[in-house]
Each structure stands twice: as C-alpha cells, then as structure tokens.
C-alpha cells in the first residue's frame, strides 16, 4: 500500500515537473514573442496608460516615439559592412527600429568604409544600460535617445557635443533647441513627435477646435449612448497638452525654447482650470477612470470612443485594428492654442567613445543630409526633425501629425523633469479615482516639481 502510494506520488511528481516545464516553456515563448510589445506597455508610450497606473519611470514617460507595435519581436544585432581592418561603430537602438537604422547605416558604411554594429534594446533599457556601461568605458559609440535623457546623461558626463556648422539651420529649430544645453548641441535629433486628438468621424464629423465646444459635443455623444465620449490618455505628457490651452505650464517656456526651471506653473489658475475640465468630464460621465491601452484597443474600433487626447503611439494599433479615425490638433482654450511638448528622438555620441571622431562624422558628415533623413522618416512613418525631409514627406498621417505638432515646444531636458512624471501621474490617478480635488492635485505636483527644480538648479 505504501509502496503503491509512493509510486503514485512519484508519477504525480513527474507529471508535475512536466507541467511546470511546459508552463515555463510557454512563458518563455510568450515572453519571447511579446518582448517588443510588452516593453513599452508599462510606459505611456506603449499606449494610453490607465488613469489608475502611475506614469512610467522617468524618461520613459516621454518616449512617445515608441509605438506599441505588436508585431515587434526580439531582434538580433545587425552588423552593417564587413570590411576587415576597418573600425566598427557600435550603436544601441530601439529594437523596433533596428532595420531602419541598419538601412541608414548602410550608406555610411559604403561611403566611408567603416562597419556599423546595430545592437537592439528595449528603448528604455538603452538609458539604464548606458548609465551603467558608459562610465566604465564599455558603452557603445552612439545611442538612440530622447530629449529628456540629455539632462541626466549630460549631468553624468556621458554625452559629447556635436557641431553641425551651417547645417544646424536645416533642423527643426525646436528639435535642435531641445537637444541643446548650455549652448552645446548634444547630439542629432532625427524624428519629432507631439500630441494629437484622434476623432471617430462616424460619431463626430467636426473636429473640436476649442475646449469651450466640449459640452455640446459631449452632450451629443451621451445622447447617442457612446460608452466613452472622450478619453484622456491620463499620463503627464498628454496632460501638458491640455493645461497649456488654459494658461498652465510645467516650466515656463519662451517661444524660442528657453526654459526657466525656477518658474513652475503647476498650481497656476490655468492648471487648476484644466484639472477642473478633467474632473467635470468625469462627473458628467463623458469619460471614465482606468481606461487603459487594453480598453481603448477594443473600444475605439467598436465606435465606443468619440475623441481621444493622445499621441502618435496610438495610431499604429488603430490602423492595425482597421479603426476609422481622423487626426486633429489639440483644442485651443482661453489662453490660446495648446502648447504640447515636442519630443525628438535621435542619436548621441558617447563622450568616452574610443571612436569619437568617426562617431561624430557619422552624424555630421553623413546623417545630417537630405537623403538619410528623408528615407528614415519615410520608413518609420514619422515626422522628420530635418526641415527639407519634413516638407518633402507627403504621407497624409505624417502631415496631419506635423500640423498637430505645429504649436509644440521642445520638452525641457532638465533633470528636474523626472520629478514631474510621478507627481502629476499620481495626481491624475487620484483625480480620476475621485480621491482628490483639482486644487490639491495642483498644489502637490507644484511642491514636488519645485523641490526637484531647486535641486537641479
């Protein structure tokens, strides 16, 4: 009896280990195939984050350039050129754009006789890995970066300035301004991005040009029993696009891109008005809490969303889902047009790179030209930071996005910005949960960001 029991136990145990193994395997496979899409998910970049979820850590919150392409998968590194004896430039890029970067590097390799190794990373992993490997001298020669990384990286002494000479005038000034600190250009912006409103033309034939028209539009949609008349991607990046229309701001930004980090405007009347707008939308049932990426992915194609205040990251998923949508600029408000943040992705040179001169040439003598810039913008379906390429792109979506970003100003690159994401993210969560008031949310965020600004100054 005991013998038999033991045998049974062993069999059970074997079955169990088998099951565990299978499960582990399944997990490995699923994690393998979903890395590309899973990486950006926790960040607002990967889609509209839930109002219940805090904003993504630090820089990631501002990486709208990461689109949550579900088809992306783990990509191996690509080496362009196989020239024996020639130096090899190593660059770390977002795993979603490896092919595009490799294609761009091909021209450099052909013309200059150097090899380029394109190493894929989850976009936000580039920053953390570079911060670890860079100081030890093990960093790559170039990395794929966003504006708001420049502050921390410059502070850590990891960025080499780049001089474009006369070519500097050919960049979208806002992008280059964003990439400039203390008069030094810290790399090369390639694509720019900002916010937009996605509208379902079947539900709302006309765009919302001013927030004052919101009530009429919403009442109409409520009457039509639309489940989510308006969705606000409730992350701090989107929030800037709303509050600036009412006269609020994070850091005071002059139209020429100068940022005064001592002037924090998160408790200005305009900011509170914008928060009131959100609270009102919630109270009147125009919007709902916890509408995250999973929810909108189903709801928009099913015509359950009238308007969504979001960014370009939402476009690809909707195109894939065959949803009908129109791209509008953000509505203006009592203080005039909205001034969302412009984020600019590009490449920067590792200050401790052993191939510093070649890496500089890669940017100044090769990339900063019409050919590579136009091609890259085309294949990534993004708005270029290079003016000639911006003008020559005839893609309707890109043109609509360019129009929506017309009033945007570069996102500040001060390290103090990193206090902004969690402070405002938490505030919005509380507001959407009806656990706080616009006043308190504004004051708390103001306190947190001012403290960080003082430290960074």
């Amino acid at each position: 009896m005991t013998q038999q029991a033991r045998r049974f136990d062993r069999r059970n145990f074997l079955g169990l280990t088998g099951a565990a193994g299978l499960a582990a395997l399944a997990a490995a496979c699923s994690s393998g195939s979903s890395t590309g899409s899973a990486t950006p998910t926790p960040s607002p970049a990967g889609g509209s984050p839930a109002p219940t979820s805090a904003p993504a850590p630090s820089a990631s919150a501002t990486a709208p350039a990461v689109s949550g392409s579900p088809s992306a998968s783990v990509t191996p590194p690509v080496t362009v050129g196989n020239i024996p004896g020639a130096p090899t430039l190593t660059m770390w890029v977002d795993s979603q754009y490896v092919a595009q970067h490799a294609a761009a590097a091909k021209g450099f390799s052909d013309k200059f006789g150097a090899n380029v190794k394109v190493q894929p990373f989850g976009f936000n992993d580039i920053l953390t890995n570079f911060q670890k490997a860079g100081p030890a001298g093990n960093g790559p020669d170039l990395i794929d970066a966003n504006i708001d990384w420049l502050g921390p990286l410059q502070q850590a002494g990891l960025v080499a300035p780049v001089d474009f000479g006369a070519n500097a005038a050919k960049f979208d000034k806002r992008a280059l301004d964003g990439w400039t600190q203390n008069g030094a250009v810290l790399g090369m912006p390639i694509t720019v991005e900002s916010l937009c409103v996605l509208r379902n033309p079947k539900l709302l034939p006309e765009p919302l040009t001013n927030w004052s028209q919101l009530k009429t539009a919403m009442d109409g949609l409520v009457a039509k029993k639309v489940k989510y008349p308006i969705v606000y991607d409730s992350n701090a990046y989107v929030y800037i696009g709303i509050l600036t229309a009412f006269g609020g701001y994070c850091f005071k930004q002059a139209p020429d891109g100068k940022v005064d980090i001592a002037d924090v405007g998160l408790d200005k009347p305009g900011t509170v008005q914008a928060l009131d707008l959100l609270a009102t939308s919630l109270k009147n049932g125009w919007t709902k809490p916890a509408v995250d990426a999973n929810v909108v992915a189903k709801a928009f194609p099913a015509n359950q969303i009238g308007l969504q205040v979001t960014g370009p990251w939402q476009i690809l998923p909707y195109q894939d889902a065959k949803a009908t949508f129109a791209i509008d600029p953000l509505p203006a408000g009592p203080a005039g047009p909205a001034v969302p943040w412009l984020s600019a992705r590009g490449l920067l040179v590792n200050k401790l790179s052993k191939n510093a001169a070649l890496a500089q040439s890669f940017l100044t003598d090769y990339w900063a030209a019409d050919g590579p810039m136009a091609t890259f913008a085309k294949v990534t379906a993004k708005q270029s930071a290079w003016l000639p390429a911006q003008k020559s792109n005839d893609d309707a979506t890109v043109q609509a996005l360019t129009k929506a970003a017309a009033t945007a100003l570069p996102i500040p690159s001060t390290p103090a910005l990193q206090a902004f994401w969690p402070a405002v993210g938490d505030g919005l969560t509380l507001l959407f949960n009806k656990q706080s008031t616009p006043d308190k949310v504004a004051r708390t965020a103001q306190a947190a960001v001012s403290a960080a600004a003082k430290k960074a100054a």
Partner: protein
Amino acid sequence: MSSATAVARRFVPERKVSAGRALRVVALIVLDAVVALSVPKLFGDGTAFFASGILLVVAGINVVLLFDRLAPWRWLAPGIALLVLLTVVPVAYTCYVAFTNYSDSHLLSRTQAVRALEVDTYLPKGAPVSPWKAYRAADGSTALYLAPAAGAEGRLVTSTGQSRTLTPGADGVGALQDGAPASIPGYTRLTLAQTVVSLKALQDARYGPPGEVVRITSLSAAANYQQRYTYDDATETVTDRQSGKTFTPRRGTFTAADGTTISPAFRASIGWGNFAQLFGDKVIRSVALQIFLWNIVFAVLGVALQFVAGLIISVALNDRAVPRRLAKVIRSILLLPYVIPSFLTVLVWGAMLNPNIGLVTTAMARLFGVDANWVANPTGSKLAVLLVVFWLGFPYFVLVVSGGLQAIPGELLEAADVDGAGPVQRFRSVTMPILMRMIGPLIVLHMAGNFNNFLVIFLLTKGSPPFEGTPVPAGHSDILLSFTYKLSFTFGNGANYGLAAVITMLIFLILLPIVASQFRYYAVWQED
C-alpha cells in the same frame, strides 16, 4: 571539531612532504601570483568591496591549505567563500552605498569624473575649424593638410610638431584635388578608406607646434581645440582653463568659490544625508510608517490565508470518506495555479479586476451593485493584492500540508481514538502540534519572502491608489520594496542608489530577527 581534527590527522600524515602537499603548495603559489598581479586592477574604481572579498577568500584558501591542522575546514571553505562573496560583500557594499550620494547625477567615481572632464575641450575665441586631409610620411608619422579659410593659405601640420604653409601647385606640391593637394613631397595622401582605418590613431595624435596644437574631432573638422579642465592631484582641484576658475570637490561635485559647479559630479560619502532625507520629513515619515504597517499585514495575512486554505483543503482531502484516487486528482488540479508562472497569473488577475472590462469587477457591479472601480480605493486595492497573493500561494500549502498529514503516524491518531478523543480533539491535540512542528518554519519563511513580494504589487496595482498630498510617490498598496523602487528609480532626479540602499538596509534589519527565529525551529531537530 576536535574529533574531526583527529580524523583528519589520520588521513593527513604530519611532517611528511608528500607529493600531494607539494602539488598543493605549487597550486597556491600560482593562485597567489595571479591574484597579486591582478590586485591593482581589482582595486579599480568602485570594485574595492568585491576585491576585498576576493582577497579575503584567497587568504582563507591559503591558510586552510597550508596548515594541516585546519584540514576539516577545507570542506567548509567553498561554502564560506561563497558566503563571503555572495552575501557578506553585497551586504557590506549596500551599507556603504547608503552613506554615499550614488545616483544618476553622481554616477561616476572621482577618477572617472576627472577622466571625463579631461577630455572636455574648448575652442579659443576666433580659432578656425578647418576641413582636413591626412598624409603619411615614410617614417610612419602623419600630417594634416588644413584647408584655408577664404584669403588665407593652406597649412600642413605634422604629428612631429611642425607647421608650414603650402601653396598647391607650387614647389612640387600637387594641385588641389578634392580640397587638398594631390601630393606633397615626402608624404603619401591617405584615401578616405585609409583615413577611416587609421582614424583612431589620427584622433589621438596632436599636430603642429606646442601652443597651437591642432586635433581632429571628425572626418571633416580639425582645430586648435584645447583641453578645458586640468586636474591637480595634490590639491584635488580642477581648473577651468577657459575661465580660469578653480573647482574644489564638495560632497561629490566640483564647486567653484562662487558656487558654480561643473558636470559630471561623482560619488562621494555624504554621511547620514540619505537617512536625513528619508526620516527628516514628517510627511515621508508618516507615509513610510503606514507602508511599513501594511507591509507586515500583507506579509502575515497573505501567508496566513494561504496556510488556512491549504490546511482546510488538505484535511478535507485526507478524510477517509474521500476516495484516494479522487483526492489525488483534486490535489493535482489544485496545484495548477502554483505551476503557472506567477507573473502571468498576476497580469490575468489585473485584467479581471479592470473596472471597465474586467470579468470580476463588472460581474460584481452587476450582481451586487459594487462600484466597478473598487480596486482603486485604498482598502479595495489592498484586498485585491491579498486576493492574488492568496491565489498564488495556497496550492503550495495544500501540497506541503498534505505531505505533513500523511507523515503523521496512524498509530497516534488511533491511540487518540482509543482514548476517546473526538475528531476536533484529535485534530487539535495530535494533528496540529505535529503538523506545526513540521511546517512552522515554512510558514515563517514564506512570510519573510512575502514581505518582499514586489512582483504582485508592481504588476497588479503599482502601489495605487497614491497617498494624497505627499511630496514623494507612494501608494496605499505599496510595500516597502515597491516604495523603495519608486523613491529610488522613478522619482527625483533619476535613480538614487544611496536612498535605495538605506531602505534595503532597513528591510534587512527587519527580516533579520524573523530569519534568526528559524534557528529555534532548527534546534528542534538537533541531536546531542
């Protein structure tokens, strides 16, 4: 111990140089030589702790191998070595980091910061940036032809410190071709491919006479770039040659007399600064206390629920009324939540608890009229977290308790029967005491483990909902570890390892007594 030494003596004859001993000494000499040679490298920036650990281990190996009296220790040595390298060193390092300002803005060591500063250059006012082409002399030295600005003459600067003007098309110098003379007597012009191949050497070389040294920064630019910062080892100060200012290190930042600072800053000891930041603020202190209390509730209650459910299910399945085979099938099915990777389970629960599309929340709203967004309120989020922790862990206790129940000798239960004990009395007086002796330590260890169950918190609620009006990000369902994560990596000016180390130290101190209490249980089995 002494008897062990005696045993060892029998196997290791003393005062006799055996081949084995000679081999041992040779091996030791080789090991020591390798370590001695690499010590300077080991003690590089930021690796001092690890290097000390290695030295300690190597010294230990030397001692136990050289003294035959310590032969029994040779069996313990690998365990102790691993203990030192994998536990003691990291703990010591964490404690050290807690007293430094190691963070994203103080990322480099001082040596690295100085190295980064020393590569900084500046261009003196009015100095021209010229396109260049490289040439190589027969002796291997290189030279650059600097294309002239309008109205000036081209120049040849050499790596041997010479500089002279060149007129293309005269004095044997070739005519301009692609912006530079096609040939220069005594030199061969490098093609673009050759230039790229030797670019590393070219960028490190300095051209022209001292005072007007030219260096290249890219394939198209060379100029009289000058080193901007110099470091004085004796005074530990940095001098900015462009402005003439002197910067002295102050708490990890090179600071001038007028308060201006330069980047990068470096890691430095700041004493109790991190502790003051954490405990000096009343609001943070009260938030940290609330999180700490909830963390204890979370750890204890979560595991207690798992255990109670596991106990009830196992006792029920162990009942004679349940057919054996059926019990086994049920037990196997109950194990499923345990073998599915927990992060998947947590994500699935997260979806089920979503107020808009979640299965559980919408069903509850429809059936009982509960607010679908209940997970977003402070108590609701805690309940949700406990629910998922319970779901993840109870199969483990079904497994363990079932095993324990089967190991209770049937005679004891029969004896209790004979003595007239009812089922309840039997369970209380016989089953429970024996069971608790067996799995008591497991429960306590599980509680200690659950104390740091970051995964569930992070994937399910991320600590949400946030506390209102706090200057730091913290939520009602946060545990200390997730609070640490927020405080250290998503807040303020980037990652703050110093602050993280402080809380890590605290968690270590909290868990220490719990783990130490295990020794009492181990003592149960001790035979003397």
